[in-house]
Structure formats: structure tokens, C-alpha cells
């Protein structure tokens, strides 16, 4: 059952996360498109973990712990009772065997939970290391003097100073200065990030390390409630509460348990009347076989593993409720930049005006962009090289080059060069500015220049006009077409989401025209152009009023209200503390595309629960066919017809059913931890597939399993 996987090292977050395929740079398409393993593959499982978690499983036998799961509590009570009966008649091997296997059933259930929890514990230990006791340099109120206090004594509003080499003592906002910070303790990402006062990059997390410069931080959380504390609680499962659906499922399982308890309790008077009074051990065995032990044993492991799958993708869910909600999401709000398109616009083509050639435009555009370090500028150089074979000229090759940087006033940039005595001035920039520049210098503006730029705008692109002044005088050469580049694979992703019944809405600050062009290209269902935070909020409320659940990502302080309003609000770890506080999940990688994976993990969690419940209930049919003839074939020989598995003896039949019941739990632990295979298809197809595998499979599997166990038991001499 176990996939051959690399044993997970109990090492750092960094090492565990390298095993996770999703830890990729932002512009990458989310994982999942690899062949083979399921979409949201993931929870690794190593049989060694079973051995390691064994002591925990024994500790969980405490009835106060067991009472949390009504089904397994009943099994534990049954184990105690059968043990007592076995002790009373110590020569009866059957009683001892049943007692032993009932205990194993309980222990296997505990083991499943312990293994699920164990994986979080390793991560928590690493986090604890980062949370070594720090000494804070607290500023007095007037800001002049510093005092050394333990990090645990900091209060909200305290100001602390951190310099290169200091560990930041608590969560807060930078109020003064700028510094590079190593956040690898939390994110596993070793490249330092910049944190500065004001704006959306002011949040710092306790336990991270300042690498350079000096910053003053205003503490925003109490000790013990910091981000790292919450993370530890979350991954350890200490903060885990049962989610609404899990509670509902527990109620259903409890009521099924009551039904079967009733069926078994009333069976004895029926049996007495029939002249076939049953030993208590047999009745207890029947009860344990009937109550839904498989799902009862694995239910909490499934929940813990679901949270764990998020943690492995560096997403922290602040509540299990949010993970369940993720499965129900029907509208996804996706920021255009960084999620749907690559971070920046790129040059797509050079369009000459009448009378010039593409090559001329390319040459001038490249020249003007050599000193332009913006991504747009770089993309122009790259395009010129790739499409027109223009070798990249180094700035040093051009003597007497005078670079004209872009400013908000001139809205253009370029270069003045003197090459072999020939003066050339090249400019590129906003249409209006460049035209003005040409006209100002008495040059001519080609009639089709305006036409070309309009056409590009209408197609959703950004036109940059290129002009040249040389011996032929100032003139417009052509237009650079800058456009958003939709990430590879996004279109297919949106098609899949649509199949799953999820609507995607692109959020962008662009004008509607541009937004529409990109929306069409990316294949999203809808877009919100020139979006303000209020617009976003209104959109979320509108969707929710129609009964839909909405998920979004955000990082800025002005995203906070919308993040709080959304059913699933994923805050980027690079975001402000307000945003992180408002959302119910934090993505440590700050990768907005991950929202899609979060939805899939949510769905997978629910599917796993449903599949194992169905399997568990379907299993019972076979158990009746094993146990009922074993119990009553003596009183009513005709009932032996029901022994369709032809089990060797009544005792062996009952024991085989009990053993199957226990072993199936262990056999399904990997599935519970990994989650059932998930593919984005319509609800109909998914149901058909899962019903076939877990419904029909659940009906048939125990017939085979019980028969095999019975064959093995019948080989043991002297047990008849």
C-alpha cells in the first residue's frame, strides 16, 4: 500500500520543504502537472513512523482521550470486557484471541492518529529552535535610551531596535529604517528579504534574523501569541479543533454505533428464544465488526493529515474550518499580476510606422533600453536579440553615451550617443510624451503612429513609442508592443477549475480594455478592472449573497477587510501584519497561485473522509455473512447457506472478521495520510469513480480478505 518514498528527515522546515514540489519560484506554474502521483500528492508515509509512534498510541489508550471518538471508545470498552471474560476462562484460546485483536484494533486507531501528529511534531521542534530565548533591545518612550529585556517581557506597542546579526524578538512592524532579513527559520527560503518602514513590506516576524542595517520595530503581538507560537501549535495539532463537517460525521457515526449496539443487544433475547444463546465474547466481536471502526479510527488522522499537507506546502491554516471551506469554494479571486501573468509586462513585437523597417525600430529600441534595468527594458533587449539577432551592446562600447533616465515628468527614457561623429538621440516612452518631444524639435510624426498605438492599447497591450533624431532629423520610428504574458499552463488550469465548478475572477488595476484582453487570453471567467479595495469587497459580498464561497489572496493593508470577508483569505507572508491577521491562511512562500492548490487540498480532505466512510459501511455486509451463520447455524442449520465464503469453522469465521477489521485500519493509514487520489473533474465523474472504488470495493474487499485470513487460520493446527 505504501508508495516507495524517501523517508522524511526530521530535519528543518527547509529540508522538509525541499521534498515538496511546490516550493518553486513565483512565476512557476503550480506543481501538479507531473504525471503519475495524484494532483495534490503529498503526505509522505514511511512504515517506520508506525514503529516510532507506537508509544504515543499506547498513551492514547487513556479512556479520557478515547472518549473523543465515540466509535473507538466503544471498541475500547469491548476490549476491556473481552479481556475480563478471557481471564475468567483462561483455557479458551478463542477468548484470548478476540481480546487481543480488539486491543490491536484500538491501538491501530491510535497509531493512525499518532503517526499523523508525529509528522507535525518534527516540524514544531525545528520551529522551537528558532524561538530560542531572545534578548530584546527595548527603546525607552522618548526613544533615546535602550535597555536589555528578555523577549518574553515585550508588550504590544513596545519599540525595539535590531541591528545586523540580531534575532528579531517578536512580531511587529518596522517603523524606522530598512534592513535585509533572513526569514528562513519560518519560510525555509534562504534568500534574504527587504523589510522597511511604511508600505506593504513593514511586517517582521519574531525569530527571524536581521542581516544588515538597523531597524526599529513596534511590537504588535503578545509573547506566546506570536506567529511562530501559533505555527508551532498548528503543526503540532495542539490548536486543532474538530471542524464542522468532522463533527457532523462524528454524529452520524455515533448514531450508527447506537443502531448496531441496539441490533446486538437485542440479538441475545432473540437468540435465547431460538435456543442459541451466545457467549458475550461473540456478541462483543459482532458489535465491533459492525460499528464503523475503519472511519472512526482514521477520521482524526485524515483531518490532521489534511492540515499537514498544507503545512508541507508552506501554507498555515489558522483554522481547520478554513480548509473545509476551501473545498467548497466556488469563486476564486485571483490577482492578475504574479498569479495569472508573469510579474511584468514584456516586449512582444516592434511595429514600424510607414516608411521605416522593423529592424530600424528594433535597433533604436534596443539602444534606448541598454541602461534600462526595469524588467520591461530588459525584455526589449531580449526581444531584439531573439527576434532580430541584435547583439546586446554593452554600455561601455558606447563612448560619449549620455543616458536619459525615465522620470515621472518626462515619461520617457533614452540615450544620446555620438558614434563616429554622428549624433543620435533615441527616446522611448509614453505616446504623448514622445510625440511632444518630436514635434518640439521640429520633427515629423508619422500619421499612422497614433493609429498603431491605439491598436495596441485596444488589444490590451501597452504601446511605447520609439523616436530617433539623427542626421535625417527627429522622427517617430515605430512602436514597441509591451504586453502581459500569461503564465504557461494557466489556461488549462482554469479549464479544470471550471470543470470543478469554480469560477475564476481576475482582479487588476488595469483599465477594462486591457483587463478584458488578458482575461480572454488567460481564459478566466470574469474580471474586475481598475479594482479598488472597495470594489473587491463589494464583489466578494455580491458573490456571498448568492450563496457562494469566495477565496482570495492579498498582502496589503488595504486588502485586509476583503481578506477577512472572504471565506478563504490567504495572506502572503510578505504582506503586512494587518493582512496576515485578517486572512485565515498564510502562505509562507507568498505565492498567490497556490490558492488553486489550497482548494484542491480542501477537496481532497473531504473526499478522503467520504471515501473511507463509504468503505467502512460497505464492509459490514461481508462481516454479517461471516458471523451470523457462525452464530446460528447450530440452532438453524439452514442458515449455513449464508456462509457463502465457506469459512472453516464458526470460531475461525468470527476471528477472521475481527482480524480483517483490525488490519484494514493499518492498511488504510497511508491512504488516510496521503489522501485519496484527486483529479479535477466534474462532480459526476468523481462520484462515479469514488463510488466504484470505495463503495463497490468496500463491499467486495472484505469477502476476499476474510476468506484469506480464514484460510491462514485453518492452517494453524489445533484451533478448531
Amino acid at each position, binding site marked *: 500500500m505504501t508508495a516507495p518514498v524517501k523517508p522524511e528527515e526530521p530535519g528543518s522546515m527547509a529540508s522538509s520543504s525541499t521534498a515538496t514540489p511546490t516550493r518553486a519560484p513565483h512565476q512557476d506554474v503550480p506543481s501538479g502537472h507531473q504525471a503519475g502521483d495524484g494532483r495534490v500528492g503529498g503526505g509522505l508515509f514511511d512504515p517506520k513512523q508506525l514503529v516510532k509512534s507506537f508509544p504515543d498510541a499506547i498513551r492514547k489508550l487513556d479512556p479520557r482521550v478515547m472518549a473523543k471518538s465515540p466509535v473507538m471508545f466503544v471498541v475500547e470498552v469491548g476490549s476491556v470486557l473481552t479481556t475480563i471474560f478471557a481471564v475468567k476462562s483462561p483455557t479458551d484460546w478463542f477468548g484470548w484471541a478476540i481480546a487481543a485483536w480488539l486491543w490491536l484494533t484500538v491501538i491501530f486507531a491510535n497509531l493512525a492518529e499518532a503517526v499523523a501528529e508525529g509528522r507535525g511534531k518534527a516540524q514544531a521542534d525545528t520551529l522551537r529552535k528558532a524561538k530560542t530565548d531572545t534578548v530584546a533591545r527595548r527603546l525607552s518612550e522618548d526613544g533615546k535610551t535602550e535597555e536589555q529585556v528578555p523577549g518574553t517581557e515585550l508588550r504590544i506597542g513596545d519599540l525595539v531596535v535590531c541591528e545586523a546579526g540580531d534575532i528579531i524578538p517578536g512580531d511587529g512592524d518596522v517603523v524606522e529604517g530598512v534592513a535585509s532579513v533572513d526569514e528562513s527559520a519560518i519560510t525555509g527560503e534562504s534568500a534574504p528579504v527587504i523589510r522597511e518602514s511604511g508600505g506593504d513590506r513593514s511586517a517582521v516576524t519574531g525569530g527571524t534574523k536581521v542581516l544588515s542595517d538597523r531597524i526599529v520595530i513596534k511590537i504588535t503581538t503578545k509573547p506566546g501569541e506570536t506567529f511562530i507560537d501559533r505555527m508551532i501549535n498548528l503543526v503540532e495539532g495542539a490548536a486543532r479543533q474538530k471542524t*464542522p*463537517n468532522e*463533527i*457532523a*460525521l462524528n*454524529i*452520524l457515526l*455515533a*448514531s450508527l454505533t447506537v*443502531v*448496531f449496539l*441496539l*441490533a*446486538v443487544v*437485542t*440479538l*441475545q*433475547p*432473540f437468540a*435465547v*428464544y*431460538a*435456543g442459541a444463546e451466545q457467549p458475550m465474547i461473540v456478541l462483543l466481536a459482532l458489535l465491533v465488526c459492525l460499528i464503523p471502526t475503519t472511519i472512526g479510527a482514521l477520521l482524526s488522522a485524515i483531518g490532521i493529515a489534511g492540515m499537514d499537507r498544507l503545512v508541507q506546502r508552506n501554507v498555515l491554516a489558522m483554522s481547520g474550518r478554513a480548509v*473545509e471551506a476551501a*473545498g*467548497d469554494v*466556488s469563486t476564486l479571486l485571483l490577482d492578475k499580476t504574479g498569479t495569472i501573468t508573469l510579474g511584468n509586462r514584456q516586449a512582444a513585437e516592434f511595429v514600424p510606422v510607414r516608411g521605416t523597417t522593423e529592424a530600424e525600430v528594433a535597433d533604436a529600441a534596443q539602444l534606448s533600453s541598454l541602461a534600462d534595468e526595469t524588467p520591461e527594458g530588459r525584455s526589449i533587449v531580449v526581444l531584439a536579440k531573439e527576434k532580430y539577432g541584435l547583439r546586446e551592446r554593452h554600455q561601455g562600447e558606447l563612448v560619449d553615451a549620455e543616458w536619459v533616465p525615465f522620470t515621472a515628468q518626462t515619461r520617457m527614457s533614452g540615450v544620446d550617443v555620438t558614434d563616429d561623429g554622428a549624433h543620435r538621440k533615441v527616446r522611448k516612452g509614453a505616446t504623448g510624451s514622445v510625440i511632444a518631444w518630436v514635434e518640439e524639435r521640429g520633427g515629423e510624426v508619422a500619421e499612422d503612429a497614433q493609429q498603431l498605438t491605439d491598436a495596441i492599447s485596444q488589444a490590451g497591450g501597452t504601446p511605447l513609442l520609439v523616436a530617433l533624431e539623427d542626421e535625417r532629423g527627429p522622427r517617430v520610428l515605430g512602436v514597441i508592443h509591451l504586453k502581459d504574458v500569461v503564465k504557461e499552463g494557466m489556461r488549462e488550469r482554469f479549464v479544470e477549475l*471550471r*470543470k*470543478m*465548478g*469554480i469560477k475564476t475572477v481576475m482582479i487588476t488595476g488595469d483599465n477594462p480594455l486591457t483587463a478584458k484582453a488578458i482575461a480572454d487570453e488567460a481564459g478566466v471567467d470574469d474580471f474586475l478592472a481598475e479594482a479598488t479595495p472597495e470594489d473587491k469587497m463589494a464583489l466578494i459580498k455580491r458573490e456571498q449573497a*448568492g*450563496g*457562494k464561497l469566495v477565496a482570495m489572496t492579498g498582502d496589503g493593508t488595504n486588502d485586509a477587510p476583503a481578506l477577512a470577508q472572504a471565506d478563504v483569505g490567504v495572506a502572503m507572508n510578505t504582506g503586512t501584519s494587518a493582512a496576515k491577521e485578517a486572512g485565515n491562511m498564510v502562505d509562507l512562500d507568498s505565492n498567490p497561485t497556490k490558492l488553486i492548490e489550497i482548494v484542491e487540498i480542501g*477537496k*481532497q480532505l*473531504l*473526499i478522503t473522509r*467520504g*471515501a473511507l*466512510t*463509504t468503505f467502512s*459501511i*460497505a464492509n*459490514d455486509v461481508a462481516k*454479517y455473512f461471516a458471523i*451470523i451463520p457462525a452464530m*446460528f447455524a447450530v*440452532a*438453524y*442449520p*439452514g*442458515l449455513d447457506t*449464508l456462509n457463502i465464503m465457506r469459512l472453516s469453522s464458526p470460531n475461525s469465521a468470527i476471528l477472521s472478521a475481527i482480524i480483517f477489521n483490525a488490519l484494514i485500519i493499518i492498511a488504510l493509514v497511508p491512504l488516510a495520510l496521503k489522501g485519496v487520489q484527486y483529479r479535477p473533474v466534474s*462532480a459526476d465523474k*468523481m*462520484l462515479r469513480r*469514488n*463510488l466504484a472504488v470505495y463503495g463497490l470495493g468496500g463491499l467486495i474487499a472484505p469477502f476476499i480478505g476474510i476468506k484469506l485470513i480464514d484460510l491462514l487460520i485453518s492452517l494453524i493446527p489445533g484451533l478448531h
Partner: protein
Amino acid sequence: MSPVLAGVLQLTALIAALALAYRPLGDYMAAVYSSPKHLRVEKVVYRCIGANADAQMRWPAYLRSVLAFSVAGVLFLYLLQRVQGGLPLSFGFASISPDQAFNTAASFVGNTNWQSYSGEQAMGHVVQTAGLAVQNFVSAATGMAVAIALVRGFARSVHSRQAGGHTGDLGNFWADLVRGTVRVLIPISVLGALVLVACGAIQNFSGIHEVGQFMGGTQQTGGGAYASQEVIKELGTNGGGIANANSAHPFENPDAFTNLFEIFLILVIPFSLTRTFGKIVGNVKQGYAILATMGVIWLGFTLLMMWTEFAHGGPALQAAGAAMEGKETRFGVGSSAIFSVATTLTSTGAVDSFHSSFTAFGGGIQLLGMMLGEIAPGGVGSGLYGMLVMAIIAVFIAGLMVGRTPEYLGKKIGTREIKLAACYILITPTLVLGFSAASMVMPDALGSMLNTKALGAGSHGFSEVLYAFTSGANNNGSAFAGLNANTPWYNTTIGLCILLGRFLPMVFVLALAGSLAEQKPVPETAGTLRTEKPLFAGLLVGTILIITGLTYFPALALGPLAEGLS
């Protein structure tokens, strides 16, 4: 024509008739329960009982009305029987004993019509018509009202709220009760009674006659409003006839045609209510899915029953050439099999043949039919709400497998909903198994059995008791002949089974309706579990059979299975 062919033809004719009535009757009932207008006669009734039929009720108010009305019904019926000795037109019958009067009152108010008396030897015209027949109408109308309230719970949406209603409104019980009686049950009953009379059923208030028998000698026979009682007895899935022989008696059911007609009456409202349901929730396909679920189970049970009865396994039956014991020759094996499945898969309990005399497996099919909770198609109203509760359970278990928290008809099945549905499905197994088990350890209760271990028929005797409580708790009312149920123990416990088995589920159904009505509906997307598809109907059939099967398998193994496999 061979008996098998005759049976198959009758079954085909029945299905055709039901299919013809399905749409018009379903649409008509949807209109009846949705119309804002009151008929003049209804207004008179509202004025008499002092009800404001336009006031919307939330679930507690609706439930209070249901319970108040039913308690009043039990008390009235109890008193009427207790004073029968002093009533006119009573053939001189005495007043009924307290335990039997309680049992009968509970039984008729609970739409069960379990009878621990012989109608023609115990009940006079007044009790029959003013007491029992009235309850035959209103207990059926009550069941329909509760079902409609649940359907409204599903149907309530933002739109209905914007139209001025309040969250959680379920309609008005008095309006639903009166409309169900006046506009649905009475008109069909009048037409049906005319058909029965035309075919030879009796309808009079005459006294007792001395009539000669074929073989010489005389017997006493009383008159009565047989035809009118008969039609509502089937149409309202009540089952309590005037004659002890019930629908096997020629006064109630003269010939093969009336037999088929009565089966039609039993099934027509429960099946058509699925159309009403589809209309009210605004998607008739959802109704078809429920219809398909009911239809598959009903047809499957019917075919199984015909197969086991025609096969007539066992030496005695082989020798006789047919399993005719307890069946009327004018109906035959096929028609009797169809009737007995229809009556046990609904809460009717009328019989045209004797269930105890069916083959062992036949008896098992009747028992299992009731144990399913009488939901295929079930009693009028109670079948629909029982099926919808099972749909909620099926959606909850399997719906997770599409990767969303479960929802049915746009309403989320959360903690509260599943708690109520779980309580609902616990009630009847508790009553049936609990009381059957108690009877197995009480010498008095065991003494009522006709078939005993001493006679080598222990498993059949056990079936008698199991059948009695299954019939009572599921509000069926049919009896597995043989058990002497007119004892204080059975009168009291079965009476309790009837009341608890009828009204506790209603409590949970109405609470469920209230909870659903308060929810904002979730729009359907490609990710939603499609509950109108055949796949879901199949899933629902599987869920019902497995859950019921698992609950009752041990009991069935020791009763009909032990008998049939020996």
C-alpha cells in the same frame, strides 16, 4: 392464461395507470399547497376551528399544531369507543376496553390502523364513520402536510424571503390539513367509492342480516359504509377495514379489478407526491430521481415477491401446485403478491391475503419492506419525508466524495441537519428491536404466538412478534396473522410504538424543515453533487438497503431466513 402471465399483465396495467396519474395529480397537489386562495367551504372550516389560515408558521408552531390536533384526535376517538355501548346504530356492540380503545385510537390517529379487534364484531356505524373514517382522512392529510412543510424547507430561497416572508416559514398547518382533505382526499375518494360501488362493494347503514350459506346453515352479516371506508383506507394508506378479513372480504374488495384498483389507490398519492416535491422545489428532475429510487425498490420487491410466491417452494406447496394458502382464488397469486408488497412498502397495512401464510421469504420481503421505513413509495406524506431524510443521509455519506461539504437541493447538510436526520433513523429500530426483544423474555408475550417452538415453528413465531412491532412502529398496521395481539401487553406496547413511531419522526422532520428553511441556498455548479441523476438514485437505493439491512439482518436471519432456509 397462466397465473404468472396474468400477474405480469396486472403489474403492467398498474404501472401504466400510475404513470398516467403521476403528472396531473402531482401538479394538482403542488397547486393545492401553493395557492394563496381559500375555497368557501375551507373558510367555513377555518372559522369553526378558529384558525388563521394565512398566518405563516415556523417549525415549532407547525409542530405544536400537528401535535395538538393529533392529541385531540386520540382523546376523541378513545372516548367515542369507550361510550359505544350507549351510541345509536351500534348493532348493540359493547364499549371497547380501555387498553384496546387506546390502541385503536393511537392506531387510527397515527395513520397505522393496526386492529386488535374484528371490525364487524366490535365497531358500530358511529365509531366507524364519525371516528375511524374521519381519522382515515385527517391522519393522511397530516402526513401530507408534514411532508409539504419539509419540501417548503428545501424550497425556501432568497426570493421567497424578498417576497415578504420570514426566514424559517413553513406554511400553515391548518391550511395544509384542510386543503389536503378537502381538495385532494375527498374528491378522489368520492370518485373511487363510486367505482367500488359500481363493481359491487357494499355501501349502506343497514343492520345485521341472517344469510344462508352455500353448504347449508346460516350466518349473520352486518351492513356498513364499506365502499367509502375502503377507498380512503387505501388512498390515505390507512389500512383499517370494516371487515376483519380486510380487503380479502368481498364486501370491501369484490373482484380482481377492484383489487387492482385498490392497489392503484394505495400507490397513487405517495408516488405522485414526488412530482409535487419537484414542482415546489422548482426542479421536477429532482422529483424524478426520488420517484426512480422509490420505483426501483418497489418494483424490485414486487418482482421478488411474485417470484417467491410463484416458486412456492416446500413440499406442501409443491403438492398443492401453488402457494394459495391464505390467498383469495378470485385474486390469485400474482395480484396478491403485488397487493402485499404495495401495502407493506406504504404505511397502508390493508391486506387482500394473509401475510403469515406467504412463503417464508415472502414474509421476509413484507417485513423488510416495512423495515425500510416505508419509503418506497411509503405512506401519504410520510413516505416522501422518510425518503428525503434518507436522501440527506446518502448525500452526507457519499456527497463528501465529490470534494464539497454535503448539500442537498442547495441546502448544506451540516451538524444540525445530520443530528436531526440521525435521530430520525434511530427511532423505529429502537422501537422494533427493543419491544421485540422485551417480548422474547416475557412469558405472557410469548404465549400470544400461534406458532411455537413446541410446534417446531419457532422462527415463524418469532416473525409474528417481530412483524407486529415492525408494523406498529412503522405505522403499517398489517398483521402477521397468528399472534393474539389483544392482550394488555401488546395493546399497550404496540399503541406506544404507533404513537412514538408516528410523531417523534415528525418532530425531527419539522425541526429539519425549519433548519433548512433558514439557510441561504448554495447555487449549483459543476462541482455540485447532481442529485437528479440516475447515479444518485442508485446511490440512494444502495444506502437505504445497506443501512436497513445492517440494522435488521440478525433479526431477519432468526425469523424468515431461518424458516426459509431450513
